[in-house]
Structures are given as C-alpha cells and as structure tokens.
C-alpha cells in the first residue's frame, strides 16, 4: 500500500514537473535540444519507474506509531522555528532551546535535555567563534 501511494505521489509530482517545464520561456537562440527536453525526459522516466513500483510493490515498511510521528513532526516544527529565530535572536538562545528540545525528543528526561541544550549551545558557540573564527552573533544587538 505504501509503495502504491508513493508511486501515485511520484506520478502526480512528475506530471506537475513536466507541466512546469512546459511553461519555460523559449529563447529565440536555441540549440536542437532546447531547455525543455531534458526535464521532459526526467519526468517521463520518473513516471515509468513509479508505474513499475506500483505494479510490483515491495513489502510494507514498518511505519512508526502515531505518537512517534507526532514527535518527529514536533522536531520538524522546532527546526523550522530555529531556522527563523537564528537571525533575529542571535546564536545562543535559539540553539539552547532547539538542541534541548531535540535531545528531549530522543530521550525524554527534562533536566538532562536542558543541560544538553545549554552545554551544546555555549560549547559550539565557543568553538565556532573562537577556534574557527566564524562570524556568529551571540545575542541580539542592544541586549547587553
């Protein structure tokens, strides 16, 4: 079932891809192949391969439980929030929060996770800033 669904998704995406490629502007100075042919080929091969997967699916993978999915989704949300916070809030605070929360997702112990977050944040900052000389900002401007 999973493989059939996967094949279907690939076919839909590949069809969308071919459509998007067909919207490419055509230059008046073009070579025999042009800008569209190779994307069409890729989309076509993907559709054929997806049909093959749908016709002969592998054994069902063991999917994690709903709870595990929720934890992974939460981890994705944490990382997305981290990506947005990194610029306005400096390195130390977002990193401590994100690392701590990820650590908690892997092993749910609050205090150890908090210590891991703070330790990683400060330790990595020291390495990046002072040993490697990357231009990281520790805290937002004007806090201290």
């Amino acid at each position, binding site marked *: 079932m999973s493989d059939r669904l996967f094949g279907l998704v690939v076919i839909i995406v590949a069809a969308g*891809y071919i459509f998007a*490629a067909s919207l490419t502007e055509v230059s008046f100075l*073009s070579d025999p192949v042009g800008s569209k042919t*190779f*994307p069409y080929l890729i989309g076509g091969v993907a559709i054929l391969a997806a049909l093959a*997967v749908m016709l002969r699916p592998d054994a069902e993978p063991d999917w994690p439980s709903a709870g595990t999915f929720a934890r992974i989704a939460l981890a*994705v949300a944490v990382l997305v929030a981290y990506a947005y916070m990194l610029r306005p809030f400096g390195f130390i605070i977002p990193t401590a929060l*994100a690392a701590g929360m990820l650590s908690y997702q892997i092993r749910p112990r609050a205090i150890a996770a908090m210590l*891991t977050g703070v330790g990683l944040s400060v330790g990595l900052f020291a390495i990046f800033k002072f040993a*490697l000389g990357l231009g990281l900002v520790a805290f937002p401007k004007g806090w201290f």
Partner: protein
Amino acid sequence: METLSLLADGFSVALTPSNLFLAVVGCILGTVIGALPGLGPSNGVAILIPLAFSLGLDATAALVLMTAVYYGAMYGGRISSILLNIPGDEPALMTTLDGYPMAKAGRASDALVLSGVASFVGAFLATIGLILLAPMLARIAFLFGPAEYFALYLLAFSTLGGIASNNQAKAAIAACIGLGISMIGLDNNTGIARLTMGELHLMDGVDFLVAIVGLFAVTEVFVFIESHGKNSALGVKLGKITIPVKDILRCKWTMLRSTFIGFIAGVLPGAGASLGSFMAYSAEKSLVRDNSQFGKGDVRGVAAPEAGNNAAAGGALVPMLTLGVPGSGTTAVLLALLMTLNITPGPTLFTDRPDVVWGLIASLLIANVVLLLLNVPMVRLFVHILSVPPWVLLPGVTMISFVGIFSLSGSTFDLLLMIGFGAMGFFLRKLDVPTVPIILGILLGNNMEDSLRRAMVISGGEWTYLFSSGIAIGLWVAAVLGFVAPMFLRGKIRKPQAITD
C-alpha cells in the same frame, strides 16, 4: 619515473606544516566521526564541508583536510562494529559479523588491532593503485566527447541503481528526483529561468550542500527520534592492547586478496565501499579451505571486510578525480567539495592542477600512516568516544549542520530547504528508496544535460551521434547491463543488508 617526480612534488605540498597539521586533525576527526554510530563518512564529510569553506582554506588545504576525514571515517567505522555490534557506518557492516563475536570472546583488542592493520594495508595499497591507475585513466578520458560523457553519467546512475540498491525502479525514481532538482534555476545554455515557480531564492538553483546535509545529517535525527536513541553505547570495556602478530601474519593473503577485490569494486562507478567490503568478505569465505569459523569470530572475517572497504574507498577516488563521476555516496560528497572549491574534476585536473592532485595523493599516503598510529596504539582514546550518548550527539550534529549552512549562505530559505530534505529523507529511507542517487543527480544533472545538448549541437540534432563511437557504445552497453543484470542475479548478488542480532 615521471610519476615519482610528480609524487615528490606532491609531498612538498603535503608536508608543509599547515597541511600536515590539517591532515592530522582530519584523521582524528574522521576516526571520531567513523566511530560514532549514526555518523559515517558521507554525512560526516557533508557537515564539515560548509565549515571548511567558511574557514577560507585554499583548495589544496581543504582537500587535504576532508580526504583525511574521509579515510579516517573508513578506519573509525570498525570500532563500534567490533565493540557494540553496531556498524559506525554502512561499509563497516560486514565487520560486525566476525568482529563482534571476537569481542564477545574477550579478544576485542586483538580484533581492533588486526582490523586497524587490515585497514592500513587496504588503504595504502589502494592509494598506490590510485597513483598508477588514475593518470592512465585520465589519458583515456581525454578521448571523451560530450556523447561519451552523457553515456558515462548514465552508467553511473544505472550501476548505482542496479547493484547498490534493492529495487531498481526506486533507484531510478531517486535519480530522477535529483536530476529534476538540478534543473531548477537558470538554464546554463540560454540563461532563462526554469521551474522556479517565480521564487527568487530558486533562481540560483538548489545548493547541493543544502540537499546533502539535509538528506544525510538531518534525516539521521529523525531516525534516532524514531528509535528512541536505543543502541546507545555505554559501558564498553577493553583489555590491554597487544599486537596479535600471529593473526596478522595468518591474514596476509586475506588482506591482499580483499584489497584487490575492494579496489576493483571501488573503481566501478556506483559500487563503492559497502559493496567492496561485502564482496571481499564473501569471496574470502568461499575461498578459504575451512570456513566453519566464519561468523563466529574468525580473524580472517575481520581482516577481509576492513581491507576491502578501505581499498574501495581509495579506488572510488579514481573515477571521481579522473572523470568527475563519483563511485559512491561519500565520493559524491567529495565531488561536492571539489565543486564548492571551484575545482573541476576530470582529465584536465591532472594537467592543469597537478599540485592539487599530487598534493592530495601524497597527503593520502601521509594520512594512512597517521591513521595506523592513531588506530593501533591509541585506539583506546577513540573507544571512549563511543560513550557519547545519542541524545547529546544528534542535537549537536543538527546544530553544526545549521551553522554550517547558515554561515555559507546566511539564508533562512536554505535552512528551511535543508529541513525539507531531512523530512523527505526520512520517508524515503522508510520506503527503501536510496538517497545517494538523489545527491548524484543534483551534482551531475547540469553536466549531464550540457553534454547531451552539446552532443546534439555537434551533430545538428542527429540522435544516433550518441552511439557513434566505440567508447560510447561500450558505456551504453555497460549501463544497460549494470541496470538490468542485477534483476536476474538477485539471488546471488545482494546489497549487504542490516543484520539484526
């Protein structure tokens, strides 16, 4: 003799104090990365590329550092295989078969020393093989025109899909995902934006480093969340380290045979180190007279896969340097490094930038000696690394990945893209879709399209031009065979599978 003088020049590059220092640092980092479960040569090198780049190292220095990490990770992978029965990386899988039983029988230190020596033999001889074979192949590669290159790229994808994966159709889908992504951005030939859907951030295309770090490093975090960080590695004990001279001598032919097999597997595009160690182990098992102890702690079962995978790691550099076509996931990552440094691998690399090529080769030889010293007398240090728990390690790896990508482009969009690749990687891994063809597709897509278009410009749109030379036909035949033949040999040749205890 020309080779020797070139090699001497290489040593004069590699032996500068700063490069020597980088080689040693790279060896230590690499061994640590290889030993840590969940980090291997490909994701380890991947997360370090953006950092090496932001450090502003010159091309040779960056290459020296990263290839030392690469070789180091190949050495380090065996440590957790032997002590914990968890391969530190995929190529070290076969070492668990006899290494762990040896450790259980109280011979952990013997197994570590023996596998260290086997790694050295494999890697050292493979580097010699690289020195002999690469310049020859580079000369042949001068005969390659766009039609031949197109067929060669196809060969890389088809053997990668055919031999190194369980399901060809899924490998083909993965290759298409990668190639499809590489098309996004400005068309090289006409300068017109393609497939960007009006998103300005996509005009430059998708940076391959973002995809690599996402698929290799971020995915690993999700996998660990799923497994709850089981397999954690606390409480490893190791006795006194002695050198088991008798065992080493007993394995000398094993090591040489396995090195040969591993090197060949490495040179073939798409096969790589995992297959090298697998083939070396199976060949050894069927060759020796008494194989009843294999799987129960036979010393030859430890020496064979280690010599094989390290030889394959060296062999995989041959097609990567001479043709620009990587033979495995890790060399794909090294190719990404070269492209980041603005070095175009291929035959011209040997004539235009001999300092880079021979400096690299010389530093590989030096790295090997350093690694032997690190991995035999000082192996005890690295055993302690295994006690870093996953709930510290994985968040740390993620944060390093973020900082690396962020310091490279400073763009939040790239970070989001990286998370997207990480999530996609998790689902693909569950569905048993290989991710290496995706990376290869992103790396090679534009070159592949360019060679097709250039071939068609030369021939004025005549498709038969693609099959017009002997080399091209040979490559097409090999590509089709490489993709189709494994379907019929499924029973005999299989990708090494994860072993559950």
